[in-house]
């Protein structure tokens, strides 16, 4: 039985179809990558898989449980690193970790040990008592990742986790993710724009464009399918070379407004 089972999944926002009838399975223990241009529907799919959005239609199952009807049981099975910020800027790094540990029922002792290990691994330990709003962009990103790894879930969702990270941190992240996958059998579902990363870690890749899955195979399989030498060429030959733009939603507008007004709240 696949760990993640998606069938005929559709998500519409008004007239706009963000995810258009996609189906795929992810087996337990697999590292599965979702690749696609901006606005292809990657994040929308992850949001539906992680109970943040209700699908318009289709089947979504994690570990045999329907995501729609058993949302709380499903939430126990995964961890997620979001594409955009989800930290509390008015709390310290350590407090953000603490809150996460409590939310995921990590026993206190394990929580403190793992917090120390992860904050040291991502070089945030010295700043653990500073408010997150004083962190640099890279530090915030690293904290998001460290927090996502605090508990050991069955499935780890990584939505463009390396966006804005330096090569050193990226390397740390993927090494750690591979380690989790091999040693603790964590299934990984990731999205990224960096083809070299997908090639390095993913066992299977689905390419999504305009809300539809256009190809689904191993990295080598995709290259053979398109007759190309690298994954990047394969990606471009499948999705074309036009540049996509995502519409700014009201959240983005408000963030801009908050910045304009000083933005010192967070």
């Amino acid at each position: 039985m696949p760990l993640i089972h998606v069938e005929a999944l559709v998500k519409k926002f008004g007239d706009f179809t963000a995810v258009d009838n996609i189906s795929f399975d992810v087996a337990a223990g697999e590292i599965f990558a979702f690749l696609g241009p901006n606005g292809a529907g990657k994040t929308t799919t992850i949001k539906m898989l992680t109970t943040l959005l209700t699908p318009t239609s289709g089947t979504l199952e994690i570990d045999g449980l329907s995501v729609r009807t058993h949302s709380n049981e499903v939430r126990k099975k995964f961890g997620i690193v979001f594409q955009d910020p989800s930290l509390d800027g008015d709390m310290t790094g350590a407090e953000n970790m603490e809150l996460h540990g409590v939310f995921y029922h990590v026993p206190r002792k394990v929580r403190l040990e793992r917090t120390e290990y992860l904050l040291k691994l991502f070089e945030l330990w010295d700043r653990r008592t500073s408010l997150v709003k004083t962190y640099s962009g890279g530090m915030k990103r690293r904290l998001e990742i460290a927090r996502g790894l605090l508990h050991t879930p069955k499935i780890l969702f990584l939505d463009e986790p390396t966006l804005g990270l330096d090569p050193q941190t990226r390397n740390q992240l993927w090494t750690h993710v591979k380690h989790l996958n091999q040693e603790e059998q964590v299934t990984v579902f990731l999205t990224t724009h960096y083809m070299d990363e997908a090639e390095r870690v993913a066992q299977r890749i689905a390419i999504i464009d305009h809300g539809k899955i256009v190809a689904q195979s191993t990295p080598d399989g995709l290259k053979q399918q398109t007759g190309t030498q690298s994954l990047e060429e394969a990606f471009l030959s499948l999705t074309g070379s036009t540049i996509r733009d995502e519409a700014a939603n009201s959240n983005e507008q408000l963030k801009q407004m908050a910045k304009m007004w000083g933005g010192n709240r967070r």
Partner: protein
Amino acid sequence: MSVILIMWLRELRRYTRSRAQIVASLGQPLLYLLALGFGMGPVFQKAGQGNYVQFVAPGVIAMTVLFSSVFSGIGLLFDRQFGFLKETMVAPVPRFQVMFGRTLGAATVAVIQGTLVMIVCFIAGFRVVNWTLFPLAFLFMGLIACLFAAMGTAIGSALENMQGFQLIMNFLVMPMFFLSGALYPINNQSKIFSTIVSLDPLAYGVDALRIILINRSFYGLPLDVTVLSIVALVFVGIGTKMFSRIQV
């Protein structure tokens, strides 16, 4: 540690860290207390109603609790905009607990704010008439705070951006304050006006505080406590429902 406790703690931590905000949020109540308190004093006295600072202080305390708790509840909107809400929404915990911890935290902050304003009232010359009832003031401040924090959470769950916030301020929160009788006596009003006032939950909060602090009653404590408790429960129910329906 439980989810409720950590969410409560979060609200308190954030409150104690924003000192500028604490001072700023005391500005408006102080303006009402001092400008109105002393400005209207002579007219009020001539009308045979006694000392206006004495009369308006419980109203100003209730107003502080109202604004503070509604704002904290609506702070949910900021969590949504800045992304933290997602973290709480994907966690394997009942959303009711998240909402409840947050509401209790917001209510606690509101009671602290109310207490600060009460201290300022004492400095401005306000005097408690009957000290034996005094501890009850905190109970009622807590009840008012829970009611409006839950209301704020419900509103915060329904709104998607700050534009709606102005609407809520002008058409819900401000009218609730002005119609609560915080600033003027509500006896001897026309029937229509009295009916409108009696639909405002804050009117019962103001009345309760006035009974406790200056021994001046309109509805009476039993009715006050009943209305406030029922409305608070209803809002906690609505807030929970709205909160668990949030999609990000």
